């Protein structure tokens, strides 16, 4: 946690040239995996993540099925070449935990009771990791679920904020994550005004916490606009209003 160099320069610019309240560049493409029911490729800064959704579908093994609701399964996995040093392809404890918190972040948005005895599988594959991959993964997964046509109360947008050089900054990148002071990933449903993921590692004062949390939620709202745009683009192209077919 000790800081070895300044991560914010005198002009308030960060290591990658952003201001403290600026998101990295985010690109989302919907429907990229042909075999999947729903899929998204997201580039969030240097993160490159593919999310595919299969389902609702039959549960295998059968005994995992629940009679009154759908089972949501989530797998966050990093490709061996996604990190600076090669990652063993076997799932690590970190990946298992992230899979779990992702599932719990997405579940409140899903109307799982509509698909009893079925399963929805969300597979998040990180091809290139760059700080904030869980948030990017959740944001993409939520869009992929909508693409799969699963009933949802809301989309889930996720973004992290953190503390760097004692300043609260939005959307911390890999360097800031490793060398900065605190990291707070947040997932948020903008219409329902509900936080579905909140983690923190690092020390924050009470004021810093409030500011950091608010900053992260603001970031989620920015991500939501990108999610919305990606979905609209896929399904409606450039048409923004319904045109009636002239007969």
């Amino acid at each position, binding site marked *: 946690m000790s800081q070895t160099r300044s991560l914010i320069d005198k002009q308030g610019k960060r290591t990658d040239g952003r201001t403290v309240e600026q998101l990295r560049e985010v690109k989302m493409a919907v429907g990229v995996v042909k075999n999947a029911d729903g899929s998204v490729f997201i580039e969030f800064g240097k993160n490159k993540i593919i999310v595919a959704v299969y389902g*609702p579908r039959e549960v295998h093994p059968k005994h995992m099925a629940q009679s009154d609701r759908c089972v949501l399964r989530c797998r966050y996995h990093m490709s061996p070449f996604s990190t600076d040093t090669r990652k063993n392809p076997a799932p690590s404890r970190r990946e298992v935990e992230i899979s779990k918190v992702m599932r719990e972040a997405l579940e409140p948005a899903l109307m799982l009771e509509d698909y009893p005895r079925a399963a929805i599988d969300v597979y998040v594959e990180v091809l290139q990791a760059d700080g904030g991959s869980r948030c990017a993964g959740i944001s993409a997964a939520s869009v992929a679920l909508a693409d799969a046509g699963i009933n949802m109360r809301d989309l889930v947008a996720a973004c992290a904020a953190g503390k760097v050089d004692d300043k609260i900054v939005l959307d911390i990148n890999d360097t800031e994550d490793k060398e900065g002071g605190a990291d707070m990933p947040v997932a948020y449903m903008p219409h329902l005004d509900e936080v579905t993921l909140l983690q923190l590692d690092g020390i924050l004062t009470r004021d810093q916490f409030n500011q950091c949390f608010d900053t992260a939620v603001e970031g989620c709202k920015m991500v939501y606009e990108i999610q919305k745009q990606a979905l609209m683009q896929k399904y409606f192209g450039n048409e923004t209003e319904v045109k009636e077919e002239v007969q």
Partner: protein
Amino acid sequence: MQELKRKYVIPGDKIVDGNFRPLMNVIRIGDSIISTRIGIAEAGRDGIKVIPLSGVYIPRINDIVIGKIVDRSSLSWDVDINSCFSAHLPAQDVFGRDFSPARDDMNREMATGDLITARIIAFDRTRDPMLTVQDRDLGKIPRGESLKISATRVPRLIGKRGSMIQTIEQATQTRVIIGQNGVVVVTGRSQGGIELAVKAIKMVEEEAHTSNLTQRIKVLLNVPDTTPAQPQLSQSTSSSVPAAMSATSKDISEVSPTKSELQSAPNDIQQPLRKEQQSQDKEEQEQQPSSRHHLGQEKASVSSSDGSPSSSSPTSADAISLPSSHSKSRSQDERGRKSDDQRSVAGVTGGDTRKAKTYVKGVHEGLQEHDKKEANS
């Protein structure tokens, strides 16, 4: 409600504020109606709904589906109906009640990999869909080229009163069987015709929501673009629909006459049986996307009808309810009704949409005819 224009929505989008009834793919949160799907939001006569543009097929009783035999146990076949639930076709349905696993060779009738047209006779939250092939035009599909489209695009592929599929069939000299589950089988004499039909079907799927699709399909098929001289049924029958919605009701216009025939029934969508009647209306199922009802709503139905499995219990008062799903207590009379039902559906899928259009009447007439026959015999 009159103010509401159709609009594109994604999950979580607020469609409208106020005291509207949530119908399909929407939920009420506080004072707002919220979409739960990507699709087109519109106001129906009874409330707000979203016509979805993606999603897997969820079975409904009386749907005609095209399934693939994927496995077999000693008493039934497992059928992949392109859904999250795998369906069962009991051997008794094919061999009759005195089926004996020891004597009858199930493989001779249907084997893994066969495609069948079947009707869903039972399905609810607690059990997987059960199929029957005992109706006219049901059973093994002997030939043809199959393809899958999203089940949400089926209504668009059929078109208003079957106009779209009829256009494709006529221009390509093919026959197209459409399962509600999105599986489509094309047959025809010439390979070229089949290929063109497949191309057109895929185009409908890709561009289902876009404007002027019919024209573009006609261009693809090289059909002169003349507006069919059909009476605008939607205009004449949708008088009960708020004026601002008349445009939007075009797509669901087929339903309007049906509903008017149902006038005698209490006009309350929340009554479960009423809902079932509607969902059992073949025409509505065939041509109206929004009639798809979801398990969540089915659950509501169940709970509000004293826990009885409403989806499989049409009441006797339910005059036009289709043949019940009580396969065991299937009477001759019901068989008669079924075959009539079947003819109508085959009509739609086979291109003769006239029959489908007059479907509800058809059932009544069929019943009367049948009654006469019964009386004569």
